[in-house]
């Protein structure tokens, strides 16, 4: 009894720790005062104003399109790569997997500056350099989530399909894709998450006037965050919460039935 109570208390304390700053930020999104440290009464104003703030909307668009495009490109290149790597001979395999681990293990700041050193030699920094850097750190996540699915794959079904006259694409779609698609999807989602929250790499590779939400927040940390940012983040957070709840509810129903 006592043990179970202690366990619950422990879990509760950790969750309070995890959610305390989030509650603070949510509260700020309803704060009528522009200053982060004084409470000026309750308001919904920032939720209206954020949609008419061009800079915030630009940053939001940049963040979402970069995350989506980079995750999509990473999913395509990464899935193809995983299939290819898995068929490689040992030396090639080790070399490629070693290189795949570099962006995962390396410090963000080093990845960021190394890409910047490359980019400034060849192009002006801008939207495209952020996109390229995000694809670069996203591909490994896709590869690492697809590879395990490939190990468990029965390769002969694919060969059999080919023998029976299926085109390689048809055979792939019918035999391999159903097996690896959960891995691709997981990789895609991870890439999306990583891209959305990235700061350090974007910071070194962004161009003039091209901001993501993260770099915008960093610039505003000094002079005080616009309350609209709190509103935007709260809205994003609640959306994800709702999505997860729906998915959770549906999968719970599915497992029961």
């Amino acid at each position: 009894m006592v043990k179970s109570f202690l366990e619950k208390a422990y879990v509760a304390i950790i969750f309070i720790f995890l959610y305390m700053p989030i509650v603070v930020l949510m509260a700020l999104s309803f704060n009528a005062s522009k200053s982060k440290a004084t409470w000026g009464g309750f308001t919904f104003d920032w939720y209206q104003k954020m949609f008419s703030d061009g800079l915030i909307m630009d940053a939001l668009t940049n963040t979402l399109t970069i995350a989506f495009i980079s995750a999509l490109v990473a999913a395509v290149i990464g899935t193809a790569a995983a299939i290819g790597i898995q068929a490689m001979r040992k030396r090639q395999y080790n070399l490629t997997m070693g290189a795949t681990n570099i962006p995962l293990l390396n410090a963000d700041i080093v990845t960021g500056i190394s890409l910047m050193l490359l980019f400034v030699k060849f192009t002006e920094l801008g939207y495209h350099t952020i996109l390229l850097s995000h694809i670069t750190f996203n591909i490994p996540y896709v590869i690492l989530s697809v590879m395990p699915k490939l190990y468990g794959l029965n390769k002969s079904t694919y060969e059999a399909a080919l023998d029976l006259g299926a085109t390689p694409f048809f055979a792939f779609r019918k035999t391999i894709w159903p097996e690896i698609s959960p891995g691709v999807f997981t990789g895609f989602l991870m890439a999306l998450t990583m891209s959305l929250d990235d700061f350090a790499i974007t910071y070194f590779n962004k161009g003039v006037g091209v901001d993501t939400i993260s770099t915008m927040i960093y610039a505003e940390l000094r002079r005080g965050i616009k309350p609209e940012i709190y509103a935007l983040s709260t809205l994003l957070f609640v959306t994800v919460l709702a999505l997860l709840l729906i998915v959770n509810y549906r999968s719970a129903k599915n497992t029961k039935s």
Partner: protein
Amino acid sequence: MNKPHLATPYVVWIIGFTVLPLLFVLYYGLTDASGNFTLANIAAIADPIHLKALWLSLLLAFIATTVCLIIAYPLAMIMRKLNLSKGSFIVMLLILPMWMNHLLKTLAWQLLLSNNGIFNTIFVALGMEPVQMLNTSGAIVLGMIYDFLPFMILPIFNALTRIDKDVIDAARDLGANSLTVFRRIILPLSMPGIISGITMVFVPSMTSFVISDILGGGKILLIGNVIEQEFNKTFNWHLGSGISIILMIFVIASMSLMSRRGDKEGGAALW
């Protein structure tokens, strides 16, 4: 299914965007402003200022990682006992905070810890003296623990759920007590999770420059701040690259110790 050439675009990509950029870092790190070969930028790490920053980064990252492990392991054990599936509500609640921008969350800690902040207001209301918490090493460690704790919990939880219950039952039947079961079965089998957890907390903690920026008030210099300053403020890319090389060596060294036994699926644990 024998199609190694499917990896060609990716191989082109890593050569262009992973290997080549690192060669650039190497080039800058090993040359001076006029393009001559030099080891001065690498040797600069021996400068007491840089050594101090490196040492402090290692120390703070070590503390943050240890505390994360101490907090996370019991939590993962409790979660395992509750028989949570990977997609359950509690696991979801652990992942959810990652969807709030990490810079904003760190800023929220600034509000909680500052001189006139929420904690100090509570302390004063309780009749205690206000405490200087912000702009200290402690605040930075707290920020690291907060930001990276989920990356410790999830791989450990994942490793724990993969332990076959029958193995534990068998050990019990053979007369092992709880401590023995933990020491001989649970702990060794969860090792891959622990190791990927450590990796995923230690490296970002050691190399962060944002957390120390926001919670350190410019009073504390970590190795990440040194690099950032050389690149963005004083325009000495050669020195910045030299220190980056050292940092990379440290990361690779500590990781190769770890990753040999690491959990390859560690990253996937997030979902």
